């Protein structure tokens, strides 16, 4: 079943066309990757899906409902969560608080409940804290729960971003270069986590990644962007042997 349906989206910044007429689908439960050389427009593509940018034309649908015109927080409420290429944690807050922020939309309490510390607020807060802790355990960050997010190692910060994104209980999670800056061991661990995550959290994964080994290993479907346009799409094997893709990455000399 298609969970995300992108049709003919184009994004122009002044005279510059960052994305041109991209159409693609993300199938529920399958890991989909968007790849392409630097500057191919991958992050712009993510930003349009998450409402940070509005597409100049075209439509984006989640479960058949259009996301165009929604603010990022509204998109998040519809069930799309994300991580960022340049890590954007809440640096001065503790690790567990970062995850708790991710649960924001699922906490139903209101001002009165908070001020009077009503039983239902207390209960909700306590169970949210426990849930957050379990997420940290899953990502092996539980021993760092009271640490400031800023003080974490790079790899741990990347993992925390994913944990925080999962805390919003998304249907679709967008990972923007999750392995960037990680060492081989961390990348390997991350690969395992992403593979398992989909099933265990009941979430569909869409990722941007430069590490081809990781992409080829975990993706079931790959979309290739170059100069803002989709140049190929298919399973890892098809992409590996697609001459257009090789040309985009290595230049035309490699093909001929």
């Amino acid at each position, binding site marked *: 079943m298609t969970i995300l349906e992108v049709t003919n989206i184009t994004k122009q*910044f002044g005279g510059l066309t960052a994305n041109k007429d991209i159409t693609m689908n993300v199938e529920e439960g399958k890991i989909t990757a968007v790849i392409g050389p630097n500057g191919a427009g991958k*992050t712009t593509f993510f*930003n349009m899906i998450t409402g*940070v*940018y509005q597409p100049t034309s075209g439509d984006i649908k989640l479960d058949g409902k259009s996301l165009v015109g929604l603010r990022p927080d509204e998109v998040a409420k519809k069930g799309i969560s994300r991580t*960022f290429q340049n890590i954007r944690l809440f640096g001065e807050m503790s690790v567990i608080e970062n995850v708790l922020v991710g649960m924001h939309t699922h906490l139903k309490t209101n001002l009165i409940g908070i001020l009077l510390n009503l039983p239902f607020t207390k209960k909700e807060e306590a169970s949210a804290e426990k849930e957050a802790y379990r997420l940290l355990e899953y990502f092996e960050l539980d021993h760092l729960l009271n640490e400031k997010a800023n003080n974490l190692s790079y790899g741990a910060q990347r993992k925390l971003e994913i944990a925080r994104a999962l805390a919003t209980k998304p249907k679709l999670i967008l990972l923007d270069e999750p392995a960037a800056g990680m060492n081989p061991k961390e990348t390997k661990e991350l690969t395992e986590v992403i593979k398992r995550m989909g099933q265990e959290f009941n979430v569909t994964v869409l990722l941007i990644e430069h590490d081809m080994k990781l992409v080829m290993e975990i993706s079931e479907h790959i979309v290739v962007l170059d100069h803002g346009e989709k140049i190929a799409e298919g399973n890892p094997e098809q992409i590996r042997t697609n001459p257009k893709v090789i040309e985009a990455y290595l230049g035309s000399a490699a093909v001929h």
Partner: protein
Amino acid sequence: MLQEILQSLPQVLVDGLTLGAVYAVVALGYTMVYGILQLINFAHGEVFMSGAFIGTAFFILIMGMGWASAIPQFILLIIVLILTASITGLVGVGLERVAYRPLRNAPRLIPLITAIGISFILQDVVRFIAELFNGNYIVTGPSLFSEQITLKASAISSIFYDARFKTSFLIVLGVAIILMVALDYFVNKTKWGTAMRAVALDRETASLMSINVNKVISITFFIGSALGGATGVLFAVQYGTIDPYIGFILGLKAFIAAVLGGIGNIRGAMVGGMLLGLMEMFASANLSLLTGGVFGAEYKDVFAFAILILVLIFKPEGLLGKPTAEKV
């Protein structure tokens, strides 16, 4: 009603241009610093105020010397302008060193807070010195360029009244225009001006191109503060009486002018300054008339802030600025 507005128009234009010229040059200081550091140099209004005091002190000092009376007023003005601008320029450089440079990587709230602190310190130090030497912190400088000139606007058309001004009006306007043209030339045509623009665009890359970023920032502060100080002198000449608190609101207005023109854009600051000066004078002359006496001239500051808010909401890049999007 239209007739009354038209009658006062020549005077409004004259007053508006004077005030606008002052705003424009002070706005340059805000815009240059913002362009390079993305920082609102809150203390810039106080640098302007210090300039007014330093200039007045020089006038009093020089004119107190007997032989100095032989110097033509105009030469005297140039000497005082240069001396004052050099001093306030150095004040600006020192300010950046002490209060902003150590905080370049701090959260953005922090340098704003030091800027406010520096403002207070400058205000109080000037007050203290003025009070110590003068007995009162409100200082009246020597009267210069005070011949009255009448602009015979009524000769053009009978719907206008005549406008009256002092010669100092011409001086203020003339010097301000010279300063602005010189700065525009410096920024666009010289080596250091190019370096400044490069640092404003991308500090990291500029430093890779062997531009000494710290030096460029110091130069920016020097020029901005020197211009601010020089305008202070012009202000003192034009309006006569100064106190340590003139810089704050005037600085704010100049900042509004910079935003109006497009912050970071040097020509924008000039246009914004002139425009704001004219609009403010127009408002203070006609607000009461236009609103049937409900709002009087007291609301002219409200008017300036209203402009700021409208610009920020509807055209945050200003009249001459280019829109920017934050990179995610």
